[in-house]
């Protein structure tokens, strides 16, 4: 098969790259290695939550924070992608979300401060409209609501923490019964999300909430399970029925909020005629004379070559197999280049789990055009571009910047691929 651009990956970076190529009118093939487990721990697009991995104060204006970061660290992947890619990529994605029927909000000039399932305020730049009424910069009292027997969102834990960390308003916790579910039955967030699309179920939950005599002006925080395939309608109907502003909080995996996003965007690409190659792990890049001739996929025991004029490699870090860690050497799966070497594997892991992790920082060295570079800074292949988490030198966990980086680099890599 021969196409203009082959995009490899299933995360936000791959989707942004595929959309960028699609919008340019050129042909794109999306090679989808399978649902990455990171989906299940994703919800919002975090552009830059904190200036460094350990800074205490959240960033209010991500555009300003980014400008400072880019000025200070010219080698940072955000600096290589450039401010324009952040801005244009974000606009492209917000428009796409709208076209695809996803209601999202936010701008690069203001972070929301949204409560998490542990009751921590977290800075996020773009979020589903169903989450934004939880913004802690607003003062209205909050009632957090869980379900009897549901372990994956704990309103009591979250409320108790939020009371301590958020000084602006009142917080309380309630639990209601989800009809048909209880402590004696195994059920997941996805089961609840499907049930919420049923009006009887929804109204039974809302009715119990109304009976809880929630105070005037209070908003209700629910686990992020308000609908799966028709979230907009489900959310609006539920909020109407409750009679208070409602917001969702992402649960422990599976995160329905992430599934909605990724499923809808992927389907929208398919509806637009984009070819997708399913569940084939990348095996090698065939490089001659400094150009990649094909990417070999391993499928059902044989190698399947994908040929394109240029390539965007957008696997998201370890979870997608973007990097392969041997005992001492970390290599990438395309060029099999060593990207890091450690005397002992323990060197990859900080002593504390919650510290900035060395392993998060491992990845491809890049040229200014986001090409993967060798140790001398020369591109490994002129027509290959990197996007997403597998870039050296940044820590998405500490700075809360995975989504923004994925969009900026996905957009920029696609632009470069189109120009190559």
């Amino acid at each position, binding site marked *: 098969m021969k196409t203009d651009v082959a995009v490899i990956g299933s995360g936000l970076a791959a989707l942004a790259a595929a959309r960028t190529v699609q919008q340019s009118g050129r042909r794109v093939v999306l090679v989808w290695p399978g649902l990455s487990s990171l989906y299940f721990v994703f919800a919002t697009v975090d552009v830059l939550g904190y200036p460094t991995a350990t800074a205490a104060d959240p960033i209010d204006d991500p555009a300003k924070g980014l400008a400072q970061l880019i000025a200070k660290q010219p080698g940072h992947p955000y600096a290589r992608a450039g401010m324009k890619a952040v801005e244009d990529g974000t606009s492209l994605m917000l428009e796409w979300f709208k076209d695809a029927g996803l209601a999202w909000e936010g701008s690069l000039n203001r972070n929301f401060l949204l409560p998490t399932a542990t009751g921590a305020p977290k800075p996020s730049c773009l979020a589903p409209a169903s989450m934004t009424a939880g913004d802690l910069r607003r003062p209205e009292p909050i009632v957090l609501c869980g379900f009897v027997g549901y372990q994956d969102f704990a309103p009591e834990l979250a409320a108790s923490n939020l009371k301590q960390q958020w000084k602006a308003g009142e917080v309380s916790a309630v639990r209601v019964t989800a009809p048909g579910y209880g402590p004696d039955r195994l059920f997941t967030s996805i089961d609840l999300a499907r049930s919420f699309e049923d009006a009887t179920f929804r109204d039974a939950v809302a009715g119990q909430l109304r009976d809880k005599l929630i105070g005037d002006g209070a908003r209700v925080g629910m686990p992020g399970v308000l609908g799966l395939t028709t979230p907009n309608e489900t959310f609006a109907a539920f909020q109407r029925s409750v009679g208070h502003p409602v917001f969702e909080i992402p649960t*422990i995996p599976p995160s329905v909020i992430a599934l909605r996003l990724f499923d809808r965007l992927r389907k929208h690409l398919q509806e637009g005629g984009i070819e997708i190659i399913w569940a084939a792990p990348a095996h090698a890049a065939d490089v001659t004379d400094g150009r990649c001739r094909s990417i070999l996929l391993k499928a059902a025991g044989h190698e399947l070559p994908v040929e394109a004029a240029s390539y965007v490699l957008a696997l998201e870090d370890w979870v997608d197999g973007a990097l392969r860690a041997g005992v001492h050497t970390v290599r990438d799966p395309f060029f099999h280049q060593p990207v890091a070497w450690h005397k002992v*594997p323990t060197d990859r892991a900080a002593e504390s789990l919650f510290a900035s992790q060395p392993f998060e920082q491992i990845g491809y060295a890049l040229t200014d055009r986001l090409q993967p570079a060798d140790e001398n800074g020369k591109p490994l292949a002129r027509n290959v571009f990197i996007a997403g988490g597998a870039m050296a030198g940044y820590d998405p966990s500490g700075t809360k910047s995975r989504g923004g980086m994925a969009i900026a680099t996905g957009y920029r890599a696609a632009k470069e691929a189109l120009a190559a």
Partner: protein
Amino acid sequence: MPDTSTGVVVIGGGSTGAGVLRDLALRGIDAILVEKGDLASGTTGRSHGLLHSGGRYCVNDEQAAIECVEEGRILRRIARSVVEDTGGYFVSVTEEDREWEPRFVEGCRRTGITCERISIEEARRREPALSKQVRTVFWVPEDGHLDPFFLVVGNVESARRRGARVMTHTEVSGFLRDGDQVTGVRIRDSKTNEEGTIACQAVINATGAWAGLVARLLGVEVKVVPVKGTMVVLSRRLAYAAINRCHKPGDGDIVVPGLSVSILGTTSAKVPDPETLPIEWDEVRRMIEEGAMMLDGVTTARAMRAYAGVRPLYDLGAEAEGREMSRNFAVIDHQQRDGIKGFTSIVGGKVTTYRLMAERVVDVAARQLGVGTPCTTAEVALNDREEPLDQLRHRPSRLGVPKPHGDESPLQPLLCECELVRPQDAAPWFKDPAVRDLEDVRRRTRSGMGPCQAAICSYRLAARLVTDRDVDGPSATRAMADFLETRWRGVRHVFWGSQLRNMQITTGLHMELFNVDRQLSEIPEPGENLPPPLAGEGQGGGRTPAEIAGQR
């Protein structure tokens, strides 16, 4: 803490101390167990969990082998709910191993260990993962897997049902004496530093590698040699049975299957201090290389964590060191040896022989107290019931097919999917004052010990601290973070391959989705200390054996 009194104070909450407590309780002697950490948090919980047939010791340590044979048979009778009866193989790989074989066969014969040489084809049929390098295979049906946590908890709960008390996270800081008679102990809460005393007629020192430190508080010497052993946990089961190298016991020559994982063990290195057990990369590497000589898949399976424990070898004065030292045990009657009345130490030994060790030391203490009731721990089942417990009720069967769940719904909610722990398995422990943090819950339920290493269940457990124990959110969050950090300390020593993929889900969830890293900076330390249970709530003790068995 309030002062109290009892007949016997047992120091040490490992298998020996727990066995001693139960033995005392069965003889009708009032007792309190005092443990500075949690039950099974020292040597026992850091063992590899091999229920020894005795084959490992039958050549060089005949007495220890004979004890293993007898005690293994007793444990299969009294503690069926904690024994996974897998059997084991002794396999020869090198020419040197082949030379060991006649001595091994002769050792088994002399010590009464059932041992049968089987053809290599038959062995491969039973254990397809046996490495191509394996040349000879002996089947030793009485090797097995012993869950060290449930063994200790089972003993302690059995004793509690008979009125014994247990104080965890409580350190003995000194002794009360009246001349040469020990009359009690001074205690200190390790978490709150509150102090108190327990008056008693006798003290049994069952602190294993720490026995010398405890004896020193009385000015007497007990020579214990702490010998570190490092183990590596693989995230899947490579063999059904225990696999031993047929040679002189050495490093990395056992692979123990335990429920869903395989444990590679172990190394042997003298350490100056039983508290400080650094895991060296060379040890981890050696475990994997040696394990790979016996089983295929050792190098490709995901190494899930590494941990180190300390053997409490007793210095009998011989020249021997480390592995050469006997795995025998000794009862030290300090009245006879040092002229101190009411103090007895039990040292050496191993988890497999814990019951016998307890019997012997309680014999001495009971005689001193004038109690003539004989020991019955070899007859009375740990769960106090006749019928065997189906320990694998919630586990995949050996064929990998889920077992029928009887009259229970097959789709019950789980608190920990990896270890198949249900919410009701954890619930009683939140009411138990001996349970002070989430690590304590883990040891009693196995929650957090599986492939995801607590990424998921840590949140659910923290949530229950708030709802079931009235802990505030910040303390519960700190407990959750501490729990994850403890798991992480074992994980980071085997940080290659798909381990990184797995841990990125943990950091993705707790840092990117929850923002726990920033939340922790808002929570003052120490937050790990959980308040006692609500007034009027019962203890976790006295639970039925079925409840305890259900935890597996």
